[in-house]
């Protein structure tokens, strides 16, 4: 059997069920044994603006999206205008034939800069500014067109089922789109029916209408549509496969590793994690009564951070979850936590900055900000997860680091993670170890919270513990936690706190600090979600006999300079790949290691990288045709 690597795109106005349709498609494909990499793009808007979902389906492990789309399901004009150019030759567009005469000017959500570019293209190809115009271009590019009147599908179905309500039920367009697609690629129909049933299991009547619609549309595609080059036959399903959305990795990690308190303030793309935690607030505990996570919606991110620290002082594993603007508000308190050696975790789902930036779009914009966040010198850990699967286990590690080293830990995630849907191996909570460091079970007399010790870390009491009284202050303090301005004590305390940066580097295992995927003459350094497209791009090049190395950095602060340096000693050309303007990892690397980056591949359009564009840039580099700074642009 030839290998399957198929990309499907569905788009429509926000609120029209694009996400549900994508969920159905992803679930059906995953049920049939395929690996999934899906990504959602949307405006900062509730209803009406264009949103779309690309789902890549393959019969081997995939880590990212590609540029070219094999099949597009559209039920509005805007999706066609925006995406017809992404179709690969031999691909297909399913579209609503009633839309053919729609003009660009009548689609009010098409913004001026996009429309200008589109008009220029249509003009140059001598096409009308209509759906028919862009479809002609697609056809000339070798794309097959599958027109169908969505309205007449509903009308016929309404008559057949004697359900007059169905006639104008445009809410069904998404299900029609996905079902036509699955019929076209000859996916077994029962999986579609089962998936719809399970999605609407609590609303049997709605499930029924959806199933009827799905069934009719599926059959319509198999009977009425001409043959399509791509099929997705049933394949072998790997047992123990999860279909997860990005934010679920860290949320499930928090549940498993004993995080029991999470205050938060709503912000895109971070809030989904907190809402998910609250939805699952009551937890089953092995051989014990139920546990729970107190999820508190606060008045702002400052309060979220203050409550996180307050709860951590009681010995509770506590975290908050935010994005760049919220994290900016937390930084004064971050210093307080550092000063008072409080273990907390801040999960930062980054987005495009600066300021409000592109609030629903991707960016790895906060690396340098996180590393340098807060006034004054204090120890903190900045830790970055690459893929979603890894983020589950990393979350457990972050809480252990916080407890062992008694520092705040900033766990770097991003929007690409948050709104990706992937298949991966079922998470194994038994792999999560729990190490509370020097948290005391009981306290002897004469306790001093900030006692000088050999390793610079003092035994930790918690609010409410017998004999464990301590004081905290944001002022410099003595061993009991009372204010001091003594210059000698100040130096000792500063040295005590900062000494743990070395301790961290010595004690966190190498594989948790950075992951080497091999070092070659050309070697990439990268971090976070960008690892996905980089891994796929390297794989593509390997097939052409080009080997490129990759080091994924995870521990960003303290920076593991010696370890990274030793890993890279055989690399001649260094390439930094990340999703921000200035190459922030490259800067951090240069600052700590003193070595220059030879090439940067950067993307700051707000859209995540595809493996195709990373591949293209790497190839240019290897062929010595690249600029020092390659800026990627793909994605609507």
């Amino acid at each position, binding site marked *: 059997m030839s290998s399957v690597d198929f990309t499907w795109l569905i788009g429509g106005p926000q609120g029209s069920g694009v996400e549900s349709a994508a969920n159905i498609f992803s679930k059906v494909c995953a049920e049939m044994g395929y690996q999934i990499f899906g990504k959602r793009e949307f405006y900062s808007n509730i209803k009406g603006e264009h949103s779309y979902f690309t789902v890549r389906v393959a019969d081997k492990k995939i880590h990212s999206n590609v540029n070219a789309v094999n099949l597009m399901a559209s039920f509005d004009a805007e999706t066609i205008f925006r995406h017809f150019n992404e179709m690969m030759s031999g691909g297909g567009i399913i579209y609503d034939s009633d839309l053919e005469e729609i003009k660009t000017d009548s689609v009010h959500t098409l913004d001026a800069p996009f429309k200008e570019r589109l008009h220029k293209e249509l003009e140059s190809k001598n096409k009308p500014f209509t759906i028919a115009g862009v479809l002609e271009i697609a056809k000339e590019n070798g794309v097959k067109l599958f027109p169908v009147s969505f309205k007449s599908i509903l009308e016929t179905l309404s008559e057949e089922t004697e359900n007059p309500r169905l006639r104008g039920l445009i809410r069904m367009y998404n299900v029609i789109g996905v079902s036509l697609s699955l019929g076209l690629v000859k996916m077994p129909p029962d999986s579609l029916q089962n998936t719809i049933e399970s999605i609407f299991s609590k609303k049997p009547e709605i499930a029924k209408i959806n199933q009827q619609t799905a069934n009719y549309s599926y059959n319509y595609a198999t009977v009425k549509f001409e043959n399509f080059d791509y099929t997705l036959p049933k394949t072998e399903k790997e047992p*123990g496969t999860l279909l997860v959305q990005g934010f679920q990795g860290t949320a499930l990690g928090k549940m498993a590793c004993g995080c029991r308190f999470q205050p938060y303030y709503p912000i895109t793309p971070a809030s989904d994690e907190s809402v998910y935690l609250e939805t699952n607030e009551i937890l089953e505990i092995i051989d014990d*009564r139920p546990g729970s996570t107190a999820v508190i919606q606060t008045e702002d991110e400052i309060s979220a951070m203050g*409550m996180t620290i307050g709860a951590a002082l009681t010995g509770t594993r506590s975290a908050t979850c935010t994005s760049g603007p919220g994290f900016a508000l937390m930084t004064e308190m971050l210093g307080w936590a550092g000063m008072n050696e409080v273990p907390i975790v801040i999960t930062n789902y980054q987005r495009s900055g600066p300021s409000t930036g592109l609030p629903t779009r991707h960016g790895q914009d906060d690396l340098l900000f996180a590393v340098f966040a807060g006034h004054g010198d204090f120890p903190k850990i900045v830790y970055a997860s690459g893929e979603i699967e890894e983020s589950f286990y990393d979350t457990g590690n972050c809480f252990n680091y916080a407890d062992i080293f008694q520092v705040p830990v900033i766990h770097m995630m991003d929007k690409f993670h948050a709104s990706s849907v992937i298949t991966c191996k079922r998470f194994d909570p038994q792999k*999560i170890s729990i190490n509370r460091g020097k948290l005391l079970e009981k306290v002897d007399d004469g306790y001093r919270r900030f006692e000088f010790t050999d390793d610079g870390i003092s035994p930790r009491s918690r609010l409410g513990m017998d004999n464990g009284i301590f004081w905290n202050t944001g002022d410099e303090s003595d061993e009991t936690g009372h204010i001091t301005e003594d210059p000698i004590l100040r130096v000792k305390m500063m040295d005590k706190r900062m000494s743990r940066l070395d301790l961290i580097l010595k004690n966190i295992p190498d594989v948790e600090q950075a992951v080497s995927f091999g070092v070659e003459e050309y070697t990439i350094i990268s971090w976070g979600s960008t690892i996905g497209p980089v891994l796929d791009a390297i794989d593509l090049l390997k097939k052409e006999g080009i080997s490129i190395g990759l080091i994924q950095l995870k521990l960003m602060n303290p920076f593991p300079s010696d370890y990274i340096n030793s890993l890279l000693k055989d690399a001649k050309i260094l390439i930094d790949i990340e999703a921000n303007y200035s190459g922030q990892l490259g800067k951090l690397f240069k600052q700590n290691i003193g070595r220059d980056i030879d090439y940067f591949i950067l993307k700051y359009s707000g859209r995540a990288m595809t493996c195709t564009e990373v591949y293209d840039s790497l190839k240019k580099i290897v062929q010595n045709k690249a600029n020092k700074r390659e800026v990627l642009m793909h994605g609507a």
Partner: protein
Amino acid sequence: MALKLADYKTDVHNDWCPGCGDFGIVNAIQMALSEMGIERDKTAMFSGIGCSGKTSHFINTYGVHTLHGRVLTFAQGAKIANPDLTVVAVGGDGDGLGIGAGHFVAAGRRNVDMTYIIFDNGVYGLTKGQASPTLRLGEKTKSLPSPNTNSNVNPIGLAIASGFTFVARGYSYDVRHLKDLIVQAINHKGLSFLDVLQPCPTYNDLNTRDWYAGTDLIDEAQKRHSRIYKLEDQGFEPVVHYGSEVEVNEKLSQALIKSLEWGNKIPTGVFYKNELISTYTQRLKDKIPNYLENPPAKQNISKNGRSNTDISKILDSLEV
């Protein structure tokens, strides 16, 4: 062994100015804790920044000296994570009603079972006497270059509007009365607020101890009249007993009207008290039945160094 008043004091040197009203407040807090026989290691004092922020260092319980304006956030986090703690938060009027005003209002909406005491002196003392949120429009204290251009916040009124369920005012030179108020505030089931008038002898030369004592208010019989009076002495009835809309509105309105009194007559005592509003911990218990017996701080999260949380049902639902 019964604890004595001295057991609630630390030996940390107190560096407040001689004659500072804060001394009376710290004494009253210590007396209240002692009278209630509160366990020291089940109690946490949280403080903000400024002169009043040092309070937590003078009291021999857990003490958390936090950040400017943010004391309520730390305190609420601790209390929600461990509802067995007795939590008292303190701070200045600039701290709580200026930079921290947003948290003040939000705390009222939550009604976490704890106490918040504001040391209210009309100035920012530790930064050398700038106008604070309770200083009135046009007033000029000693170190202001020109009269205050902002109107004042009404702390009692704001607390009532925000949903605090116990609202009272004390005076730092009536330590015994203040102690009684603190006992009531700590015993109150819900979020209690205490506005404590506290002369700053160094920077507030308007609202001085003499001014509160009314030395300037001498009647024809050459008799002085203290500006401070007690609501309870006038038969003021602040408690909501039944919780009907009519009763609650009446109690809230009379408290608001009383909160506007200032000048020659300044009320102290309890303005409003309503224990019929659910506390935040009760609200959590409604969602999480065993929250009070097994709150976040008490939960066992591991077994033999491994996760003991069983997320298999959630994982099952995600499995394809």
